[in-house]
């Protein structure tokens, strides 16, 4: 749990964080999930934080600690049922971490992520963990933000969340057929009509976690 907190602190103090959250769902319910974190525009700042022993009273993890933790998450996730091809690339020169995995179903993906969080943080029996942030019924995808993350953002001090004003969060949902419509008016449809993108400012997201909520309706016909 402490590690997660430190991770968040580290991310917070690097105001120019860029997060890329990409999910591809095929008609059979299988798909690929990608999650990239880019801190390269704050690499001097990140390096200066890593050079400290502690920050805000908490020990700053070393690159070795971070790498070890990433490997643990990766290993645990790859062992979960319905999850395959787990890949993690970490670049500690530019501070970019890229995660990717294939899943058999949306349920399997969420279950695996929840189990790893419970295992690593000791959190259990909480409503936040029970919450499903993805729902897929074959023609409709409902997306929101996992409550486990909003739990942390709610605790942020105003001065801390202010630091995220230059950060961005990009959420992309991809399909193997056309998108018919979507609820969130801030979302954009790709020219090929098979992907929906939502961009949000990281600071605004801490203030209003519903910014990335969207329900995407697909056409019945598969793309030829």
């Amino acid at each position, binding site marked *: 749990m402490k590690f997660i907190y430190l991770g968040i602190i580290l991310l917070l103090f690097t105001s120019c964080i860029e997060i890329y959250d990409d999910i591809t769902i095929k008609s059979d319910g299988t798909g690929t999930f990608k999650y990239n974190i880019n801190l*390269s525009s*704050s*690499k*001097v700042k990140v390096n200066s934080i890593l050079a400290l022993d502690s920050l805000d009273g908490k*020990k700053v993890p070393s690159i070795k*600690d971070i790498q070890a933790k990433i490997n643990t998450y990766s290993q645990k996730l790859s062992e979960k049922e319905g999850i395959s091809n787990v890949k993690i690339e970490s670049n500690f020169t530019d501070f970019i971490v890229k995660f990717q995995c294939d899943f058999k179903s949306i349920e399997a993906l969420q279950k695996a992520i929840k189990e790893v969080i419970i295992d690593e943080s000791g959190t259990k029996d909480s409503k936040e963990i029970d919450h499903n942030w993805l729902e897929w019924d074959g023609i409709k995808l409902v997306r929101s933000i996992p409550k486990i993350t909003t739990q942390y953002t709610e605790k942020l001090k105003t001065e801390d969340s202010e630091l995220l004003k230059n950060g961005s969060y990009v959420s992309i949902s991809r399909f193997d057929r056309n998108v018919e419509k979507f609820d969130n008016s801030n979302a954009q449809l790709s020219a090929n009509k098979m992907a929906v993108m939502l961009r949000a400012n990281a600071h605004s997201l801490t203030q209003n976690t519903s910014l990335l909520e969207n329900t995407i309706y697909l056409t019945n016909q598969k793309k030829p």
Partner: protein
Amino acid sequence: LYFKNYSVHLLKAKHFALTMKNTIIILFTFIGFTSFSQHSEELIPSEAVSVFSINNISLLKKISLDELVKYEFMQEVQSELFDGSTSGKTIKDSGLDFDQKLNVYYGKNELFELSGFTFGISNKKQLFTVFDDFEKAKTNITGVELYSSYMNHLLIKGNSGIVIRVEPTYEKVSEITDSIWVARGNSMFFDESYNDYEEGDDYDGDYEEEGIVKDENFEILDEMNPENDLLNKNYWELRDSVTTELQSLYFNQVLNNLFVKEINLIKVSPKFTLQLTHPVDGIFYLDNSKNFSNAKGLWHFQTLFPTLYDDMLDLYTGNIMVGDIVLGESSVDVFMEANYGSELGSIYQKLNSAKFDKKVLKYVHKNNTGFFAYNINLKEGYQRAYDIVIPLLEDEKDPRISYNVLLAELLNEYVNTDALFDTYKGSMFGTFNGVKKVKTTRIEFFYDEETFEYGEREVESEEEMPIFTVGFSTNRNDIPEKVLRHFGRMTSRFKKQEKYWVVEEAVLNSLPLYIINRNGLVVFTNDEDLALNHADGYGKQSLSGKYAKKAQKSKFMYGYFDWGQTLNKLPREMFNSKQNEILDAMRGKAGFMELTSSKTTISKTDFHLKYTFDGSYDNSGKYLLDLVNSIYVLSK
């Protein structure tokens, strides 16, 4: 103070006179009360290593008690002392005698650590509205009242009080607990959770889950058979018992010294006694010789090499730092005196005999925010230290020490010390030139409009970076050049330019470091402008006038810092919330800090730190407490 005491005693005497109508009794009563009066500084334990004494505690009247307990020096002593009962109250309401000094002390030896403060009492009833958690306890010491709250104790003698907390050291508790534990037939205890804790986790796991909390049925078992509990304590319960016993033992030792034998710091330290007489706002005292003898690593050293340890202790005897604090309307002056014994003094005297190197000024921009220079004659210092330390070591029969003595003697003979100390003479300087935007690169995510497929590209970027320059004087630029050339051959990151070297991605793995090795100086900087455009110095833009003259006149050390400007540029996240609170009080104000030193003699070096600011502080007492706290934290 005398007048006040006199008035109190006179009133009491008058009362006696009216009732007893006996002038002899009046006289004896008066004498009795007078001899019984106590000053707060007389209650400072002789075991104290550092003391901060506030002479004019009237300054603190406006400080709220809630504010006071936030300081580290208060929290350590009595975290559970203040509760809601102090809300909205100030020190004025606390029953303190503002005519007596308030003394904050801390001490540590190989057995225990003690901390607390001593103070005068004017109103005991008011005092106990603050110390409301303290309950009266029994003591055999005549004339002393004892009150306790958990591990904290309040003792009152006459019209002075001492709050004290004595805790056995971790090592001592471990030593005794482990010996009992093993004597009971257990194997050596290894705390598996210790390594996890060391990794930085504040423990937030479930104790029960880890088997630390005993079973619910265990409590029932305890009640049924208390004897069984005594014999079957687990390691942590045993440790708690040992800690409690030692706490009591050491606490009584301190009390015995202080109240029965009447040995206090004043009696054992003439330096401290003298310092107390200074008519200033506050004084501090730090006995470095005790810090030397209490240093953790040296206990092992003391066991292995007792004679050598005693010799080293002799060398450190008298190593005491004392200081005065004077609060002005727009300035704070701290006068420090670093004292030492004659042998150590002779090393310092030689070491500090260097003159300021004027060439340094060429590399200090006139608009810099901070500058320091210290001037050391490493060659002279080395020779003097060699003459003093080697004879101490030579007498040791231990083969390891003997081997090291031989090695040192051979190196002294064979190494060209002239070349060594000509390369690095010992004098250094540094400047802080504020925060500048520096060029860097970043990876940008971009998205294809057709499919929203993601890609990456490298783009130019800018980040803010504090600009520092540090350097040292040398008579041999050729030797650092040889080293740099070697690195240049070994790695492409070291590149020779016309007047400087550049080391790519050297600062925080992201930015270049520039090395200017010329004109009798070796200068390291992350300031591209200095390297590219001013490799031979800033010329007319370099530091001159008043501060340049002061630097040149300085002996061992000189420095200044535009605190106001710098603070506004330092990121808040670098500090914890308490530090930020202290810094917030200074942010937005123009403040200038300057440190000068006197010539080093065989017995001492004087330093003067002056902090001037625009406008007066709303509450100089708070500023004084901030200083107390800083010194307390630093001296721990």
